[in-house]
Structures are given as structure tokens and as C-alpha cells.
């Protein structure tokens, strides 16, 4: 076992607020240059660029965990990490089912295009759904859906001024089923329940942000299963900085 450094919160050019040079290929190159062993690709409410990201990572030194940053009805951001692209795609299907994130909702008002690309950085298309919107499902329902798909649910930037558990809900619900919480250090740690493992990640929207914050995991290999064990503190795995 050794420490693997991971940045588990990175947006691609598919996210409405991310820069267009955040292509999967570029992200992985940058992550490798920053010495990261593992990243998670987590676009807002979409799994659209995951296959390109995993394709780019194949055979390289940086492992990619398929993920998504889901916006709950309370407008709390939840990082969902999965073992497979299929699980992430199923999560996306459940999010869009029932009319949330309708297509052609004027996404350009949020700035950049929402670009779907392939492994070679070629544009495959533009996502017409307003990914900056929110699900009509509440926090607990989304965490439940992530767990039902075998995924990990992490409270994104849980102590930040916007789109966080603290900003949207005032205080951390005692019974929240999160597996871990991402902290930015902007608020006193005492506002966050002690029982949740703390993670540090960059929430990168531009290449220079990748790896600025990272978490070290003591584990056997940079895989989803090992990561899940490390977050839960099982089998001698754990978080080490």
C-alpha cells in the first residue's frame, strides 16, 4: 500500500461554467504533470464527457473515476462517484427522467457552450440541456439513488458560501447519509459534523486549478473500490492528508 494523490472534483468543457480548454485529454495531461494518481471527472448534472475522459486515461498514469456533480432541489451540490460509466449514465437517466433539465432551455445564457468531445478532443456535439439547473429530487433522494447504484455521495464544497449544504440548509442535517464531505476551510470545521471524512479537491473549472487541492489516500491501487474502502476506513485503507 502507498499514498495515492487524488483530485476528485474536476469539470470539463461540458460544464456551463468551465473553460473550453478543459478537454478530457488536456485535463489528464495536466493531472499527470501535477503528479496526481487519480482524478474524478464531475460535470454538472451530466455524464456526457465521461467516456472520452476514461478513454483518454486508458494506459496512462492517471486513473479516472467516473462522476457527476448533481444539483439537488435545495440547490445543494452533491459529488457522485461511480465504479463504472454505466452507473453514471443510469444516474443521469434518472436525473432527466420526469422532465428535469429539459433540452433547449437557453443554456447559452450561462456563458460558454456545453461541449461534448471524444478522446481526440474533437467536438461531438453540444449539450442542449440547461446543466446549470437543478433536479426536483431532494438531497436525501439523490444520495439514496447514488448509493443504490453503488456510488459514493460527497457533499461538494460543504462549507462554501454558495450551493453548499451550509449555505442552502443553514446547518448540516444530522442524519445526512453522505460518505464524505469536501471542505474548503472557509468556515470553522466545528460547523461540520465530526463523523464525516474530510476531502480536499480543486473543483477545477480551468486547467491551472487542477491539483491545487488534493487528498492523499492510503490504498492498494487507484481504483474506485480501493477509494471507497479508504473513505470508509476499511481494510487498513484510509485518508492521509
Amino acid at each position, binding site marked *: 500500500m502507498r499514498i495515492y494523490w487524488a483530485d476528485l472534483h474536476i469539470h470539463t468543457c461540458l460544464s456551463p461554467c468551465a473553460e473550453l480548454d478543459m478537454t478530457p485529454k488536456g485535463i489528464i495531461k495536466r493531472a499527470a504533470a501535477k503528479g496526481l494518481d487519480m482524478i474524478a471527472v464531475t460535470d454538472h448534472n451530466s455524464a456526457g464527457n465521461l467516456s472520452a475522459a476514461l478513454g483518454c486515461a486508458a494506459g496512462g498514469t492517471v486513473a479516472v473515476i467516473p462522476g457527476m456533480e448533481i444539483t439537488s432541489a*435545495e*440547490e445543494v451540490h452533491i459529488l457522485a462517484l461511480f465504479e463504472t460509466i454505466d452507473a453514471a449514465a443510469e444516474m443521469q437517466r434518472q436525473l432527466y427522467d420526469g422532465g428535469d433539465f429539459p433540452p433547449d432551455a437557453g443554456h447559452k445564457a450561462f456563458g460558454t457552450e456545453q461541449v461534448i468531445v471524444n478522446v481526440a478532443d474533437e467536438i461531438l456535439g453540444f449539450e442542449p440541456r440547461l446543466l446549470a439547473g437543478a433536479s426536483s429530487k*431532494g*438531497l*436525501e433522494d439523490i444520495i439514496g439513488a447514488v448509493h443504490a447504484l453503488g456510488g459514493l455521495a460527497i457533499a461538494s464544497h460543504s462549507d462554501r458560501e454558495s450551493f453548499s449544504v*451550509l*449555505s*442552502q*440548509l*443553514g*446547518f448540516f*442535517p444530522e442524519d445526512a447519509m453522505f460518505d464524505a464531505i469536501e471542505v474548503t476551510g472557509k468556515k470553522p470545521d466545528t460547523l461540520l459534523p465530526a463523523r464525516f471524512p474530510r476531502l480536499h479537491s480543486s473543483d477545477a473549472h480551468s486547467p491551472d486549478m487542477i491539483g491545487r487541492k488534493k487528498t492523499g489516500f492510503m490504498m492498494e491501487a487507484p481504483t474506485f473500490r480501493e477509494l471507497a474502502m479508504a473513505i470508509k476506513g476499511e481494510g487498513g485503507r484510509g485518508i492521509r492528508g
Partner: protein
Amino acid sequence: MKIAEIADKLGLEVVNEGQWEREAKCCYASDMLSDVLANGGEGCLWITRQSHPNIVAVAAIRGMAGIIITGGKQISPDTIEKAGQEQVMIFSTPKQTCELAGMLYMLLSNEVERG
């Protein structure tokens, strides 16, 4: 103005019973619970689209007169159960926040003018 009178005049649907005789002195509209926790006034009726169980604790901590959930949103049994425990009145309305806030504001300010 008494909550009962306000509920009647605005046609609010009762989600959780509470202190009908209590006076509402003011109103506050916000969906960010951290904001309400910091700025929600005592004795105010709080207008929001949030229906997470945490709204009950926030209203109780700030001593607010009650919560009005707008947009005809479904309210979870957890929220209703907590409201029962904390004795926080919850109402629901199909109206949107802006419209309801305008109506409530007029009601409360007319009363102030009449003395």
C-alpha cells in the same frame, strides 16, 4: 395580524397546525437557509420554496411565526413530522413567492398604517 386571519385572507392551505393565535409582525422571503438563520426576524412569517426538514429548525431557532411554502410544492413527511415536534406552523400555497410576498406585505403594512 393574527396568523389565522392571514391564512384566511391569503387562502393558505394548512400543512401543520400550530399557534393560530400568534401575531405575525413581519415577513421574510428567502430560500437560502443560512441567510434566514442569520437574518430571519422573530415573529415573521417566512416565505420559501424550500421544503427540506431543516426549514423547521431554522424557523424554530429564529422564533418565526410560521412558514409558507410556495409553488404548490410537495412537502415530505419528514418535514411535517419535525414541524409537529417543534410546533412550527407550515402553510402551503400554489402561488409563487413574488405574488404571495406582495400580498402578505400589503396585508401587514396596511395594518401598521391603520395603527
